């Protein structure tokens, strides 16, 4: 409401007018909030996998291991980004899987897994970075119990500050640090509230980040 705009801004100006000086924006090195001791000298892929496991995510580098895991959990129906599918399809051979390359939102509960591309990852926090440019559908990366994010080996940031600096112009960037969780009921940790109960990062060398 336009009247409200003017009213609010004039009250803000009125409230600040009596201040003799305004607090200055501090100068600081972003390094202060980086866990450098953790990162220094480490291979970023290795560190990312270690940190991802610490927050309850699964880090894999072999698509065959991914397929074995889905099979062991009897998750035979799922979604795969059409761009990734030609590369992954051979691993899903055997006739027991039913993988769709379009996501039908009227059947969300049919999909046991969703495989989409990640834009990047953050080693320091074990975070997977999704965005609208690389994620083929937001729902497929969110609604199935298992989400598999395919991360390019060369797209791993060392720390959170670096990842913030690289946010770019994408309209929707989502950092996923482990599976969806809650501790609302008596402080007991439960995974898989609205989003994935299992968050998998598949780190590969055949995807390129274009970073």
């Amino acid at each position, binding site marked *: *409401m336009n009247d*409200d*705009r003017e*009213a*609010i*801004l004039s*009250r*803000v*100006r009125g*409230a*600040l007018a009596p201040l003799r000086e305004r*607090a*200055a*924006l*501090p100068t*600081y090195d*972003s390094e*202060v*909030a980086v*866990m450098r001791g*953790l990162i220094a000298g480490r291979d970023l892929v290795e560190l990312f996998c270690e940190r991802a496991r610490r*927050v309850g995510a699964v880090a894999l580098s072999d698509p065959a291991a991914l397929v074995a895991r889905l099979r062991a959990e009897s998750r035979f129906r799922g979604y795969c980004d059409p761009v990734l599918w030609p590369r992954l399809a051979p691993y899903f051979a055997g006739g027991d899987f039913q993988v769709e390359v379009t*996501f039908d*939102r009227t059947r*969300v*509960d049919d999909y046991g897994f969703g495989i989409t591309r990640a834009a990047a990852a953050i080693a320091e*926090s074990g975070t997977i970075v999704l965005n*609208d440019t690389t994620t083929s*559908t*937001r729902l497929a990366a*969110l*609604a199935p119990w298992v989400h598999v994010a395919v991360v390019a080996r060369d797209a791993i940031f060392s720390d*959170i*500050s670096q*990842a*913030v*600096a690289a*946010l770019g*112009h*994408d*309209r*929707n*960037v*989502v*950092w*996923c*640090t482990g*599976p*969806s969780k*809650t*501790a*609302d*009921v008596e*402080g*007991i940790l*439960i995974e*898989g*509230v*609205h989003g*994935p109960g299992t968050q998998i990062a598949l780190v590969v060398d055949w995807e390129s980040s274009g970073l």
Partner: protein
Amino acid sequence: MRFQPIDQFAKNLPPATRASVYQSTKTTHEKRTKLLFDQFAEPDRLREIAGEIKQHAIENLDTYLPQVEAKLKANGAHVHWASTAESACATVLQIMRARGATKMVKAKTMVSEEIELAHYLEKHGMEALETDLGEFIIQIDHDHPSHIVRPIIHKNRREIAQSFEREGLGSYNDDPATITQRARHFLRHKYLAADVGLTGANFVSAESGRIVLVTNEGNSRFCLAATKCHIALIGIEKIVPRDRDLALLLNLLGRSGTAQDLTVYTEFIGGPKLPAQPDGPEEMHVIFVDNGRTEVLASDCREILRCIRCGACLNVCPVYRQASGHAYRSVYPGPVGAVLSPLLAGEKFPQLADLPKASSLCGACHEVCPVNIPIPDLLLRLRARAKDENVPSPGTPPMGAWALLASQPTAWRAALAGGKLIDYLPTKLIPVPALQAWAAKRELPAWRGGEFRKWLKNRPR
């Protein structure tokens, strides 16, 4: 003897609730401290910088608000302004009506609690469903959140299981995993059927117009994947100057609130979805809400506007741990609430003027605050304001006789000498029940009145 309202509430709190609030706040607080001190050489330095950033932001809102408005518009969002709770609610309703929308899914936002948005929309024939598990349970129980981050910290699994049974979400089962799964299945179809997704914002960058949202459950992600219209309800104090400041603040927010390096989902929203993306809002509205904030900005307590709603001060507060959140009779409980609630109350300040008094001023809240808000100082300023405005203070012992003595040196000296008589007084026999209860387990130390004066007079110069 009359009690302060908060003491009265604490006195009547079921012991089981007190025990669970105490235990879970203590655990979170201890984990927070361990994380910060294990991971950073100077965690207090981080809090100081973050405090300076936010103080700068609120003291320059006259520049940053128009700047962020321009950025948001350039990003394709519609920007609205709401002076009051009524105006904010009406704006949401208007946006929904313009789209022919009837169903809203809501992520957790404290501003929406503040303006009682869900009630308002329901009254006007809209469905407004809370999707955060805790807030959903609060909604079906017609209850109020008792913690900023953990809304149902005051409830146990049996009560929740009964509520789910009553609402037809399955037969009685108090296993937390089952409760969560039932909510998951019920709510995902609600998201998909909804017209509008409403969120708050943890931060808004003035530099890029990016809105930052954090959740652990992923409910705000679902709101922004399933619906076609996004409404973000944002207090005007949520602005941070630059994107780079977000890295520091996000590092502090997760650790301070829930003892996580990062909250599970951190979303950076820079406008409606791109055409190539099949899911998500085509339309985005941002509503900047004042609702008393400019009055806080004009007051001598403006530091409280730095608050990033992490809940760390609640978790560490000895009063909150004993009294739980409903004792604060307002949306914001705990130390932050004891400052913010009376300030936001406007003309109703006297009704909440007792909150700043319910503190021993121990300073623990200041020590843990990720934006370094000097909460004890603000509590004192509000106590002074209550005194200036002659707000009655129930439960405060009369201090008139003491004030008389303390302001007249002769009388004071006489009292110091005469006080020796207390040593011979049979305290246990004085017919005042409160005094007898106190004296039953304690003894007064021997009278030492006048010792300091004696020392001062005789000390070598």
